[in-house]
């Protein structure tokens, strides 16, 4: 066991805390120089576990130079941690210097951090890359003893995770054998994360903190029944408000910004006691967000309606209750949200789920069952992205001369890039040197030139340009939203450029909880005035649409094939499913249920895939292409996380169904569709920006999305024409398949079910199909919020009518 000096033990006593087992063990691992992944639920002293070892070591060895590097994906988290660790340091009067370094750090301080580094430096992946690009990187990091990576579960399966993985590999050059300490929420497969974190494919040790009491999660009971379809959960507003009144502080989580704006509006309309309820999402200004955080931590708010913008490990004060409105989409994600409540060790969190439609009831039940059984889902780390590798190679060359052989070794020592072949690597290296064009080479315009020591940047501009463009987050274009009064005005936040440009003067929209009327776009600012209109246009849905996790989808399928589980469901839902099993079939784990029925003089084909919106969208595009080929004339399709409905003029018959879903659809139709869709252009823009072909930043003047889009589209067209085999086109293709289409997931599904299809020919729509065929959610709802509600009511009436028809048919 670890030796915890008296000083530290006394501090724990003064706080009235005991040193937890995993905190002590983490310190022991540190003292043994072991790299370790700690998985623990939120609110179990994880941060302290990570810093205890380094703090003790710094006090005992009084090192000169940088001792511990802490990397988190969020600037705000860095400040939070800095405050917490600083509190210990000053309480014990320890001789330890801690500083954070982010994009906001002053240039004076940055300079000092390089010449006289603190003992502990807190930073982001991007800022770390920048530090690694300086010629003195070897010197600065030479004394490094440990690197702590926080929120690994959030960041590992992303391009930012690739950036961290490569930085870790590079640091091994400067400080061989430094400790790698990973902090993570509880994950389904910790072994994968241990490997991700390890050097040369050697997994790090794993410590799992004992989980506390399981959270108390239940579906919120409401007077009104859950509707058949929809996403706004307006039916539950009175009960949500009642829970807010009962608790001291509540966080109401929603899945998209649009839901946040709408629910916030509904709550205030019903909030007769004027309880202080606020809203929080990523589009609001920094000032507004900080103000809300301040009020929240000071306990001045009774409730906060929030999107995932607040999920990362910041302390939000004393929250009693968490309410999740809309489907949870994933078990791990739900647990993290629930973990926001009762940040005390040993006290179970309390949460309510509010499904927005009947399918979501099933999803909520499946999630609750998984939580009770302590099962988890989650993102797995993917093979490293090659565009990030390109950025990394140039980054290394900015610091010191590089050779292809050495760079290849460094890349391959990271688990994420272990399968990168030398041939693929050479293409990337070639691209860094001169763009790697075959037909015409840039002999005079090399980015890297060869010296006896290795390759170095050809000139200073190249280094400068690279440093300004480090990072992998390609921002969606944003417009500032400015509310004008008279001549003055106030900036409220940012809105997607695309959404802003779709508006005309006079159009109204919700933003920051207000109804605004669009006036004009001027100089990247959207100017609007307060509006008295009651029928605003909604914010667009772009982003925020998490697909249903595979794990939870399996849970829903399992629930549907268990009579016992169905018997425990609320009455209306049970009735709905019973009708379905009598009229058609219930889906199960082994087969893919497909229904066909006439509707509005067309034929509708419904596939209950349970594969999430993204995969269903892709499948919809592919199957309708194939249907066109078979002259079935598909006209439109609608989709949810659970299923896909395609309307066509001709009917799909039993004999055709296996041809429609055969696995070659992923070759022929996919290639054809990709070539024509704007999807690849979007991916090309992303990889071209990350690989440094075009820039986001130039001399601090940020290009607008439009400019970047325009130029990458032009490059894309020309490249496809003259050099279709270019490495960037390959990367764009991979990126599109992975990031946008969920092709892997679709592939798995088609292979699994292509010989196990249950096809049912029905005289009219089945009960189960209603949420799919009546889904009114589109990119933009027609007519605005209130009109959407009206549409929703119409839909509900249609659903009731269709159900009555089914019942009538069964009685005959």
């Amino acid at each position, binding site marked *: 066991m670890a030796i915890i000096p008296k000083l530290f033990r006394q501090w724990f006593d003064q706080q009235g805390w005991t040193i937890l087992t995993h905190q002590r063990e983490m310190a022991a691992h540190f003292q043994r120089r072991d790299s370790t992944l700690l998985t623990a639920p939120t609110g179990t002293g994880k941060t302290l576990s990570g810093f205890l070892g380094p703090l003790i070591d710094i006090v005992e060895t009084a090192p000169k130079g940088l001792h511990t590097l802490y990397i988190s994906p969020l600037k705000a988290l860095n400040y939070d941690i800095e405050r917490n660790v600083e509190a210990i340091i000053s309480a014990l009067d320890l001789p330890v210097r801690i500083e954070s370094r982010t994009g906001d750090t002053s240039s004076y301080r940055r300079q000092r951090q390089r010449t006289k580094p603190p003992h502990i430096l807190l930073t982001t992946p991007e800022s770390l890359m920048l530090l690694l690009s300086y010629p003195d990187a070897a010197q600065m990091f030479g004394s490094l003893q440990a690197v702590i990576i926080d929120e690994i579960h959030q960041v590992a399966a992303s391009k930012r995770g690739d950036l961290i993985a490569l930085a870790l590999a590079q640091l091994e050059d400067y400080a061989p054998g430094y400790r790698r300490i990973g902090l993570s929420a509880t994950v389904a497969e910790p072994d994968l994360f241990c490997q991700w974190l390890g050097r040369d494919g050697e997994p790090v040790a794993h410590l799992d903190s004992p989980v506390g009491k399981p959270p108390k999660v239940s579906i919120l009971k409401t007077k009104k029944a859950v509707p058949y379809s929809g996403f706004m959960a307006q039916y539950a507003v009175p009960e949500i408000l009642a829970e807010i009144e009962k608790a001291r502080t509540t966080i109401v989580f929603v899945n998209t910004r649009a839901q946040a704006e709408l629910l916030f509006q509904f709550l205030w309309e019903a909030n007769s006691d004027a309880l202080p309820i606020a809203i929080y999402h990523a589009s609001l200004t920094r000032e507004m967000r900080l103000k809300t955080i301040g009020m929240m931590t000071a306990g001045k708010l009774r409730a906060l309606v929030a999107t995932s913008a607040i999920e990362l490990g910041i302390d939000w004060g004393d929250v009693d209750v968490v309410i999740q409105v809309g489907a949870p989409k994933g078990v791990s994600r739900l647990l993290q949200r629930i973990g926001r409540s009762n940040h005390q060790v040993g006290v179970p969190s309390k949460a309510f789920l509010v499904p927005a439609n009947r399918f979501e009831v099933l999803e909520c039940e499946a999630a609750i069952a998984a939580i009770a059984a302590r099962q988890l889902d989650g993102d797995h780390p993917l093979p490293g992205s090659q565009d990030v590798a390109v950025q990394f190679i140039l980054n290394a060359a900015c610091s010191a001369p590089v050779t292809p052989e050495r760079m290849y070794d460094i890349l391959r020592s990271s688990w994420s890039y272990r399968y990168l072949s030398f041939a693929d690597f050479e293409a990337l290296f070639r691209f860094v040197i001169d763009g790697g064009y075959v037909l015409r080479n840039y002999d005079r315009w090399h*980015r890297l030139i060869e010296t006896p020591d290795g390759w170095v940047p050809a000139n200073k501009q190249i280094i400068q340009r690279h440093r300004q463009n480090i990072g992998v987050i390609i921002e969606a274009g944003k417009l500032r939203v400015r509310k004008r009064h008279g001549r003055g005005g106030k900036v409220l936040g940012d809105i997607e450029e695309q959404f802003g440009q779709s508006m005309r003067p006079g159009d109204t929209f919700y933003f920051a909880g207000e109804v605004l009327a669009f006036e004009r776009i001027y100089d990247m600012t959207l100017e609007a005035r307060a509006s008295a209109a009651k029928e605003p246009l909604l914010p667009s849905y772009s982003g925020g649409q998490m697909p249903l996790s595979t794990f939870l989808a399996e849970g829903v399928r399992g629930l549907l094939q268990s009579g016992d589980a169905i018997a425990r469901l609320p009455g209306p839902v049970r009735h709905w499913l019973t009708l379905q099993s009598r009229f058609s079939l219930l889906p199960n784990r082994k087969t893919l249920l497909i229904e066909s029925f006439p509707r509005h003089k067309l034929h509708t084909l419904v596939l209950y895939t349970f594969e999430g919106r993204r995969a269903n969208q892709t499948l919809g595009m592919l199957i309708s292409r194939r249907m066109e080929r078979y002259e079935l004339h598909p006209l439109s399709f609608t989709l949810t996380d659970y299923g896909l409905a395609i309307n066509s003029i001709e009917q799909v018959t039993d004999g055709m169904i296996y041809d429609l879903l055969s696995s070659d659809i992923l070759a022929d139709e996919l290639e054809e569709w990709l070539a024509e869709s704007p999807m690849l252009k979007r991916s090309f823009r992303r990889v071209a920006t990350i690989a440094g072909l075009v820039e986001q930043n130039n001399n601090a003047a940020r290009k607008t999305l439009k400019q970047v889009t325009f130029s990458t589209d032009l490059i894309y067209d*020309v490249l496809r024409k003259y*050099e279709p085999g270019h490495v960037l086109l390959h990367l764009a293709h991979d990126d599109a398949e992975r990031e946008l289409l969920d092709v892997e997931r679709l592939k798995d599904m088609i292979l699994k079910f292509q010989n196990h299809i249950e096809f049912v020919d029905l005289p009219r729509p089945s009960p189960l199909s209603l949420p799919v065929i009546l889904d009114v959610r589109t990119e933009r709802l027609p007519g605005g919020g209130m009109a959407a509600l009206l549409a929703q009511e119409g839909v509900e009436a249609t659903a009731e009518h269709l159900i009555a028809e089914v019942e009538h048919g069964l009685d005959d």
Partner: protein
Amino acid sequence: MASTIEVTFAHHRFVLDADLALWWPSERVLVVSDLHLEKSTFLAQFGSAIAPYDTHDTLLRLESLIRKYSPQTLILLGDSFHDRGAWQRLEAATRDHLLGLCNGVGSCLWVEGNHDVGLVRDDRLTFIDEAVIDGIAFRHEPVPSGGPQIIGHFHPKLGVHVRGHRLSGKCFAVNAHMMILPAFGSFTGGLNLDHGAFTALAGDLPFTPYLVYQGTITRRPPIHS
């Protein structure tokens, strides 16, 4: 879905081609503007390894227009080169291609644009300030004169809403006194027609845009400021 559209400008009949060119049938004059040749290699100097095929692509498109119309006169309406070093950076074969195209027509007029000023070149290339044919002035940038003028320089483009979809493309902009040509170069961006620069230029006579989109050209309602 037309690939050309006829307009009357200054009492003459012109053809606007979706391949970003202006054709004057009676005078057999073909006009293109803002080629910005060697923009890719210009950017390459600053570390951006953009695909270097823009000049090649631009010249191939120009070649096919020359084949289509067999013009007597070819007018390059300025900013033919992206920067002062562009001529020198041309590969020998590309330079020959360019000169070959020019020598293949009766006369080839290089109007000087702001990007062409100071171009390091040899005597095979001479610029003129403007060309005037039948009282119509062809120049790069507009001058506040009384006569009708055909210009480039502004790279006009237009975004429109069609049944809820938004699409945008390069465009021609025409009023009674002035015609602005779209940029011809493969790597040229654009300035939206609702920008202040255009409304100032239009004065009391709003521009009628002719939108080029995927090989077609369509007349759109005039842009009022």
